[in-house]
């Protein structure tokens, strides 16, 4: 059997004496969509941020496409941020608060990574960026500045920016939870379309219904551990663990 695209093995993370992740293990196969759910403070964001080493794990392995992330091959030495850059470029990340760059136009926000990281010539980079903007239905906003866009539009630009990396894996950290309710739909629709294209996704979300519809598998985290994981529909409609049941019943209210 083909080995999974992403493997997380025995992942630990502490901030000082606070142990936030207490040994996380799971993997994501190519083309699979995995949703991570769980109460606030359970370590979902931390786990996601450890995948691309925005946080340095205290212990454990992250393996992307057979290659250990953040650690020099053949040694145990951690990579510097500069050394990590090519690995990070293989993973697109979408943040809760978008973090578009306000001094660049929408098109530049999407194309700058292509130009500066991937070394794509300027014209070609703009063309690819434009395609990505079309994908998130914002081709007409290419030359405006992000500050003039609604939250939903900003998040779609952020998604286009991640897509422009031509990533092996997309990481979403609660992409809709900073949005006004009426803007959530447009972002979820875009994510749904990407899912339909067969992209590999790891998605932290509070939108349980969305997780059930879009994900192949759901992981329920609490207190820094994976409490339960399973096929999306099954886990959400018929959770096995008591903690999962309590969490889901609170959310459904």
């Amino acid at each position: 059997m083909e080995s999974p695209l992403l493997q997380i093995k025995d992942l630990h993370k502490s901030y000082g004496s606070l142990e936030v992740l207490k040994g996380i293990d799971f993997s994501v196969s190519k083309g699979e969509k995995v949703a991570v759910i769980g109460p606030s403070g359970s370590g979902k964001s931390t786990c996601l941020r450890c995948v691309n080493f925005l946080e340095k794990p205290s212990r454990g392995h992250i393996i992307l496409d057979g290659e250990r992330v953040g650690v020099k091959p053949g040694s145990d030495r951690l990579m510097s941020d500069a050394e990590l850059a090519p690995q990070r470029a293989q993973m697109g990340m979408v943040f809760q608060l978008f973090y578009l760059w306000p001094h660049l136009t929408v098109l530049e926000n999407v194309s700058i990574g292509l130009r500066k990281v991937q070394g794509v010539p300027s014209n070609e980079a703009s063309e690819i960026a434009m395609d990505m903007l079309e994908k998130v239905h914002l081709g007409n906003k290419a030359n405006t500045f992000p500050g003039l866009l609604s939250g939903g539009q900003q998040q779609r630009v952020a998604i286009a920016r991640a897509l422009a990396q031509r990533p092996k894996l997309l990481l979403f950290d609660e992409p809709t939870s900073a949005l006004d309710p009426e803007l959530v739909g447009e972002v979820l629709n875009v994510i749904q379309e990407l899912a339909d294209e067969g992209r590999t996704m790891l998605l932290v979300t509070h939108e349980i219904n969305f997780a059930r519809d879009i994900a192949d598998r759901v992981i329920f985290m609490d207190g820094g551990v994976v409490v339960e994981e399973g096929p999306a529909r099954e886990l959400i409609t018929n959770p096995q663990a008591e903690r999962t049941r309590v969490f889901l019943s609170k959310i459904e209210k």
Partner: protein
Amino acid sequence: MIEFLEVYVKYGSQWFPRMADAALVSASLAFAGFIVAFAIGLMLSIFQRSPLRLLRFVATIYVVVFRGIPLLAILFLLYFGLPGIGVTMSAFTASAVGLGLSFGAQMAEVFRAGLEAIHRGQREAAIAVGMTPLQAFRFVTLPQAVRIISPSMLVTFIVLLKDSSLCALITVNELMLEGRALATEYFLPLNIFVAIGVFYFLIAWPLSLLARTMDARIRAKQTRTL
């Protein structure tokens, strides 16, 4: 009052061209000093954010030391002191370097404030698309910081311009020195130094207006992005 102004009608054609020339020297001196201060300040602010403790230490020491030494002491040291160990510079060069060294420390603080005003998610997003820390700084953090801090940089420039008058004491023929020369020639120090003051003001005032407009524009443009 009338008599006071009549002096300018009488001597203006002799004074003003010389003052204007000297004002140009003052402005170029301030500009040269500012460039040096900018470079030093930028370097220090990069050091301050470095993961290497040694660089952070160097930056801290620099700021502490150069904030503690009066500009005049630095100027004297460079112009009168260094020749003692075989390093000679023209008065203008020594002044530009001295102003730069001294204001570099202030500029570092200006940069620091600007960099801290930028949400850390900005840099994270850059790192996440695969930029190196240097690229993230160059393409994401720095351009935003420069926008945020340009009003305070202009204000720093104005202070630097005014302090460049001290360079008269190491014989740079800028406005103050020209003023003193004129005062000994014409025995009209009150008129002459008032005029010198006006020249400084004429350079500084438009700049401070510009700083205020820029500040207002930046405030108005506070966008909803983080």
